[in-house]
């Protein structure tokens, strides 16, 4: 049936009647449009008061909805603002974006590391420790590290409880049990925050100098410090490229999280609702990235690389560990060893 239909339509198009009807329709439409314009300009426009097609107070309510402040006798924080719409954006970003993506980010990286551990295995020492040790971190440095680390873990756990506790812990502890826990957690978070920032600032002062990147640190990343691939281990000084990267990551993330945290912690800084919403999202997003990064640091500092934990726990490392991970520092230390047993810093 299709072929004859096409044939037929060709025949009809040669007919003059449809074209005439189309032309008449076009003329009619054009007349209508022109007459509408003539009617509007000639008849309605001559009546001076314009017909109001919008609500006269529409713009008034629009400004109110945009959060414009009025006057009120009631005293208190932002009492003059009748309506603020930012809160709902904040709710959506927090509940729909942040709370949905961060478990995948944290969990994903956790499982990637776990997978790496089971498939690749930890970074073992090539030679068994001979018993000879080098002093790497003196007691004040270790105390500083563990002080900040402990506060970091407390901040992370209490902070995550604020975001996920409702979904994860209420089913376990019940409403009252969880409220009791979170009431304490938020106090630990709010009072502990400034102490974490203090630890971070001292760390920056104590460690920024040996962490200034050099050219060999960039080469370190080509084989992740010899952890992957077969080639020879890259050279590294006292602090290798990976550790330096973690240090500067900590500085950057820590300062952002610390600053935003302090802003929220002290109402004296006068953070408005709108600012709180922005600052809170920055705080939470960077904190989740910070925690994700810390998983790598915790892995390499514990089960990921043999002998590394000792350096921050007892302060001493085996000569074999030093030679494998920080060969230039090792060579330097061995040279200086007869003269001075404990390197500065």
């Amino acid at each position, binding site marked *: 049936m299709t072929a004859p239909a096409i044939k037929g339509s060709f025949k009809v198009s040669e007919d003059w009647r449809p074209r005439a009807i189309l032309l008449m329709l076009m003329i009619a439409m054009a007349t209508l449009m022109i007459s509408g314009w003539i009617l509007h300009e000639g008849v309605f426009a001559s009546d001076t008061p314009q017909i109001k097609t919008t609500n006269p*107070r529409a713009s008034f*309510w629009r400004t109110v909805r945009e959060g414009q402040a*009025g006057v*009120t006798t009631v*005293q208190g924080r932002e009492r003059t603002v*009748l309506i603020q719409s930012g809160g709902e954006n904040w*709710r959506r970003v927090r509940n729909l974006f942040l709370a949905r993506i961060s478990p995948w980010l944290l969990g994903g990286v956790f499982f990637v590391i776990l997978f790496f551990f089971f498939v690749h295995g930890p970074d073992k020492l090539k030679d068994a420790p001979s018993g000879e040790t080098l002093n790497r971190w003196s007691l004040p440095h270790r105390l500083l590290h563990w002080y900040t680390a402990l506060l970091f873990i407390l901040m992370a756990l209490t902070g995550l409880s604020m975001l996920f506790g409702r979904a994860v812990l209420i089913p376990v502890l019940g409403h009252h049990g969880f409220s009791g826990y979170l*009431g304490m957690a938020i106090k630990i978070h*709010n009072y502990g925050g400034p102490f974490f920032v203090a630890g971070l600032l001292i760390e920056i002062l104590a460690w920024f100098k040996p962490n200034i990147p050099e050219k060999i640190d960039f080469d370190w990343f080509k084989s992740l410090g010899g952890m992957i691939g077969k080639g020879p281990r890259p050279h590294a000084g006292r602090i290798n490229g990976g550790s330096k990267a973690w240090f500067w990551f900590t500085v950057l993330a820590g300062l952002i999280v610390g600053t935003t945290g302090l802003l929220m912690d*002290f109402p004296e800084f006068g953070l408005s609702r709108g600012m709180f919403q922005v600052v809170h999202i920055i705080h939470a997003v960077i904190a989740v990235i910070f925690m994700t990064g810390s998983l790598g640091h915790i892995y390499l500092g514990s089960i990921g690389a043999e002998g590394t934990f000792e350096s921050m726990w007892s302060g001493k490392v085996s000569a074999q560990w030093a030679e494998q991970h920080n060969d230039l520092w090792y060579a330097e230390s061995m040279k200086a060893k007869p003269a001075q047993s404990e390197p500065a810093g």
Partner: protein
Amino acid sequence: MARMKFLCDVERCIECNGCVTACNSEHDVPWGINRRRVVTFNDGEAGEKSISVACMHCTDAPCAAVCPVDCFYTTDDGIVLHDKDLCIGCGYCFYACPFGAPQYPQESAFGMRGKMDKCTFCAGGPPQDNSQAEFEQYGRNRIAEGKLPLCAEMCATKALLAGDGELISGIYRERVMKRDSRPDTWGWQKAYNFKS
């Protein structure tokens, strides 16, 4: 079942603050907290408008959505209430609420705010209806006594309406028809996703 709502008739509110006073005295709210407030726009100019606002008892309440301890609940009448025994004073509801309803007895260093307080639509809270414990934490429970919120009952110009949404919007619609004005169901779109 009724769906309780507030409606403030902008053409009638004269900024007398009677609703604020009625609320404060009925519930014996702590000094410094005002569950209701009147905001005036274009104050002292032609076209000055005043609106009395408190918790609007939203259908999809942002406070309840962001509360980390899940202390909010909605009654069968559509009233949004919260449990002060669960509240940890984190401030999230204040940051999420479009109407600025949540209030805190204090605001001091290290984010200490105390238990949040807000309008209960005169419906108290979780403790036994009209018990001393309920009164001390949440104020009078007029709903349990079969009465409506006192702010609206005391309103001299009957600008503030409180009650079943259908009933009060019916009263309001009649007024709008009579005075040939346009409806300003202020806040209803935000609170109840209502389009007039």
